[in-house]
Structure formats: C-alpha cells, structure tokens
C-alpha cells in the first residue's frame, strides 16, 4: 500500500514538474535559448495567482488563465525588446542575459512582495479523496489534469494551427521559414510568451501545493532543465513523461534510498541519459 501511495505521489508531482518544464522546452526547442529565468517566471505566475486569489477573490484554478495572459504579455515583451537583441549571438550570451533576468526578476519580486511566504490556500487546498487505500490530494490531481490539458493544447497548437506550423518551421529551418513569410522577431516573441504563459500556470499550481517566495525560482529552473533534457524537445507529452519519470524517481528515492538523495537522483539520471542517449536529447522541436 505504501508503494502504491508513493507511486501516486510521484505521478502527481511529476505532472506538475512536467508542466513547469513545458515552457522551457518550447523556448529551448524553437529559439535555442536555455532560459535560466524560467523559474523566476514560474515564481511571478505564482504571485499573480496569489494576488488574484487573495486580492480579488478569484478561485485559483479560475485565476490560472488570467495569470497565463499576464505572463504571456511579460514574456512577449521580454523577448521582443530584450532577448531578440542578442538571439543571433553566441549561446553564452543568451545564458548570461537570462541569468541576469533571473536575478533582476527575483530581486524585483522581493522589493515588491517582500520575502514573506505566500501560500495559495483555497478552502479545498487540503482536500483529498481515498481510493483503494491510496490518498489522492485534490489540488495535486487538479494540477496533474491541468498539466495534461495544457500539454494537449500546446500539442494541438503546434500541430494543427498556422501559428504552430510557423513555429515548427522556424525551429527546423529559419531561412526557409523566412522565405515563406514568417517574421522571426514576431514569432520568437509569441513563442517566448507562450512559454512564459505555461510557466505562469505552473507557478499558480505550485503556490497551491507548496508556497511562493521570491527565491523558489532557481530550484525550479534546475528541475525544468533536467526534465527538458529527459523529455526531449519534440513532443509536449514527452516532456510530461519526463516530469512524471523524475517525480516517481524522486518519490521512490526518498523512501528507499533516503530523502536527502532526491536531487542526486534527478541529476544522476540526467547524467546517465546524456551518456546513454546523447543523440536524443537536444534535438530540435
């Protein structure tokens, strides 16, 4: 029974991890930017939902789309007016600038919101249901389902829409895409905005299962990074799977190896995958 419970915990946690990584993978795959400020955007999404919930009384799940719109706007502007300036330069520069962005966003958040812990705590935050002796926390289940829905939407967007085709085309061959009339500056901004919107949704959910402080970002960036490499950059569901894989590995490690080993496990697995299947990771979207 304990084993089943641990598996469920890992699965649900992994769904949330996967959602977090989704935005990073999209930006990485299309723009070839490893966004080190990704966790900071997740954090801002968390604050957004927190204030919509505590300030305006909007249910946190209903606030997710609003937070996504806000984060989309932020992401769009960041890419359009900051990141587009250096996107053609060496990858080290994009790493540097997103690292700088991470620092700036984190400290702006501390100035604006203080270092207080903010938990998004709707009345059903602690609710759960029991199924065959396994306790399933409702919010985590909700987060998992949300992750599935958003991954599905992203997949549909990429496969079925004109915008999605333009995004994929740009990722595959920029020159050819331009010949067909894609405006990369605009498209990059939209893609980065989509990535930020997904991060924003993940942040709101994270605030419901955990808490938001200006400093949660760095750890989430690292986790998203690992999952993105594991899940590959091609398919949103691959990313979710990567998240679930990490979630379950961590949950099992905490019990059977020791709770202090969870990070060692995720990064250890990353190393193993890079050694075993270097070709699969880091291929275009």
């Amino acid at each position: 029974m304990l084993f089943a419970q641990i598996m469920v915990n890992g699965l649900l946690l992994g769904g949330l991890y996967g959602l977090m990584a989704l935005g990073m993978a999209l930006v990485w795959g299309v723009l070839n930017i490893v966004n080190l400020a990704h966790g900071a955007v997740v954090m801002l999404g968390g604050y957004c939902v927190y204030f919509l919930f505590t300030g305006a009384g909007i249910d946190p799940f209903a606030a997710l789309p609003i937070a996504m719109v806000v984060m989309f706007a932020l992401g769009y502007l960041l890419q359009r007016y900051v990141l587009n300036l250096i996107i053609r330069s060496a990858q080290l520069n994009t790493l540097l600038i997103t690292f700088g962005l991470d620092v700036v966003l984190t400290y702006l958040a501390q100035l604006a919101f203080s270092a207080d812990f903010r938990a998004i705590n709707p009345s059903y935050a602690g609710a759960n249901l029991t199924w065959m002796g396994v306790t399933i926390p409702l919010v985590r289940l909700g987060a998992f389902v949300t992750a599935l829905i958003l991954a599905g939407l992203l997949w549909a967007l990429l496969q079925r829409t004109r915008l999605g085709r333009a995004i994929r085309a740009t990722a595959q061959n920029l020159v050819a895409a331009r010949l067909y009339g894609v405006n990369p500056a605009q498209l990059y901004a939209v893609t980065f905005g989509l990535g930020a919107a997904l991060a924003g949704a993940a942040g709101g959910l994270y605030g419901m299962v955990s808490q938001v402080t200006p400093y949660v970002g760095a750890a989430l960036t690292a986790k998203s990074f690992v999952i993105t490499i594991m899940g590959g950059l091609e398919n949103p569901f691959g990313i979710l799977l990567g998240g679930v894989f990490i979630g379950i590995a961590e949950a099992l490690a905490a019990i059977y190896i020791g709770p202090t080993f969870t990070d060692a496990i995720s990064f250890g697995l990353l190393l193993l995958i890079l050694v075993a299947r270097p070709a699969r990771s880091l291929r275009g979207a």
Partner: protein
Amino acid sequence: MGRLLAATLAALVMSLPVMGHAQTKTVTLGAALQITGPDGNLGRYFRDGYQIAVDRINEQGGLTIGGQNYRIALKILDSQTDLNLSVQQYGQLVTRDKVDFLLGPYNSNFTLNDSVIAEKYKVPMVSGGAAAAQIYSRGYKYIFGTSPPADNYFGSTLEMMTKLDPQPKKIALLVADDAFDVSVRAGVRALSAKDGFELVVDQVFKEHNADFGSLLSLTKSKSPDVILMGGHETESLNFIRQAKSLDVNPHHMMALTVGVPSADFRSALGKDAEYAFGMTPWMASPVIRDRWFGDAQKFAELFHRKLGYEADYHVASAVADVETFAYALEAAGSLDRDAVRDAIAKSDFESLYATIRYGETGQIDIPQIVIQVQDGKVVPVYTDHFLNKPRYPVPTWAKR
C-alpha cells in the same frame, strides 16, 4: 557690527552640536545578514532587532564607557543568503570597515562558518540565531550565543508528553540536514530513549526540501502518536499543508521546532495552523524587565508600532545580543576586545529576552516554552509545568 554679531552667533550656534559631538565617541557593531535570498524573511528579524536596540540605547543617551559617552553605530551588510559571501563580508567588516565588534547572522550554518572570522581576528561575536551544539563545542573563545542549545529544543515538549493523557508512545521524527536540525535530532534521540518513547520514523530530509509526499506517506504507514518535525519555516509550512492534503494524522499531536511563533507562519497557513505545537524561548510578557525598553511587552508594542509586524523570539534574541555588548562595554570600561570578551563571559543581566548568562562554551541555556496555536493565537502551554491547557489530543484533519 550687526552683521558681525549675526555671523558670530551663527558660528556659535553651528558649533554647538559639533562641540557636543566631539565629546561623544562611537562604538561600531557589524553584521552580515541574510537581508535577501531564501533566508531573507528571517534575516530581517535580526536587522530590525539589532537596529531597534541600537536606536533605543542611543536615544536614551548611549553608553558610558570608561567615563566617556559613546553612541553605538551599526554596520550591516547583505550576505544574500550566500554562505561564502557571508564569511567574506565578516572578514571585510573586521579588516576594511574596522568595526569594533561583531553581531551574528541568522541560523546555525552561517554562524558556524562566520564565527571562524571572529576567532581568527579575536573579535567577540554575539549571535542571536545560532543554536547548534557544533558551534560552541570547538573551544572557540570569541563566539557567544543567545539561542538555547538545539539538542534541547524538544526537551520541554518531550517532558510535557510524559504528562499528557492519553500518553503518547510512538514518535515520528523528521528533521532537515542542516547543522541546527542535526543537533535537534541528536537531542530527541537521546531524550526519547530516556523517557521510553519509541521512534517509529527517524528520517533526515535535505534543507529547503519542498515535497514531503514520500516522507509523509511513510509516516502515515507507521501510524505514530506524535510527529516531531525540525526544519526551517518554509519546510514547516510545506510539511503541514502537505500533511493535510495527504490526510496524515498523528494519533495525538504534531510539534515543530520553527515557525509556530511567527505571525507570518500563521497567516500563510490560516486555520491549518490551528493545534500545531511549537516552541519559543521567549514570550512578550510584562514580567520580563529590561533596562532600555521597560519590559518585554512594552518592547513588543513598540516594535510592532515601528516595524509593522510582530516581534518573535528571533527579534528579542537580537536585542539581547546588542544589550550584551552594551553591558559588557560598560563593565570593561574600554573598547579593548579581550577585556570586552571577558566581560561578555561574565554577563549577568535582565533583558527583555531572558536573564543573560553565558555558559562555559559561550551559549546561553534557557528553557523552551511549549506553545500551541489556539484560535489563531499563540498560547504558552508548558515549561516545567503546565501554563495553559493544551488542546489535546489534536483532532484529525477531517474533523476540524
């Protein structure tokens, strides 16, 4: 003539404060605190505690050291919760900024490393947020601490548990892997063996852990009577929220080392904070007298008025650190670091925090008061006897 008179008068008036100033010297206390970064939330308790104490002492005429009037100045750097930077900044405070004495950072890990600088340069450091035994067991002479020993944090809680009805037997102990919590764990292991409790879960998790799913599920499977949890405030918050969502209920009670006395903790958790047991070495009580602030209650009111949030034991401990220097400087009669160090070791005074006396190792030893959140308020429950009736056994999440 009129102009000359006016100019003379103006010069005289302007020189007055300068003349007054010439007689007042300054003694500078320095600290590198976690103003930003993951510990920023608690680092500010020390910044604000140090500042309010220094301001108050200065407002009331400063100190008389060897017949000279002194004001206290405070030099605070932001270590950004970066341990290496913190050590570097303490070095800077001593060598570049030439501060006279050092106040400690928040938490045991930082103090453990920062106190090396104090020892190296033979500058006394008084730390208000460092409880781990490790810090004081190295034979250092220049580090003093106003946090009671970590290995006894759960001492009063365990003693209370032997007097509760129904009496708990099985304990689940979950602590973080930092210096402070490792000391807490060692203490609980020793004490629970002595009092005949059985540790059915005894696990260490990594510092700043955010997901307790596995540990909580393991705990649930062992059905303990009591959960004892040792971690920082963020971990305590995650732990309680996730315990609720996974429906993990100890049969009788849950107690945490850190978090419960802070207003921040209660506001983040809302009614889920209810029934949680915690501990504090300090309550804002009018019977604890203080030379500068009157008493602890008056201090708490002043603090809340000035800073806009509730003081907790971290703040009181920080004030006691500054007062330690104030008393020791007056007793030593000079700024000589070794003389002040010896005067600190002989400290014996009433402060709004507690009666300050340092033991052989430099650490204070005061009891933890067991507290419980009852109707949104922190209620003292037990020291070596019951102060108020605990709400016990604690109802399950489903029945609240």
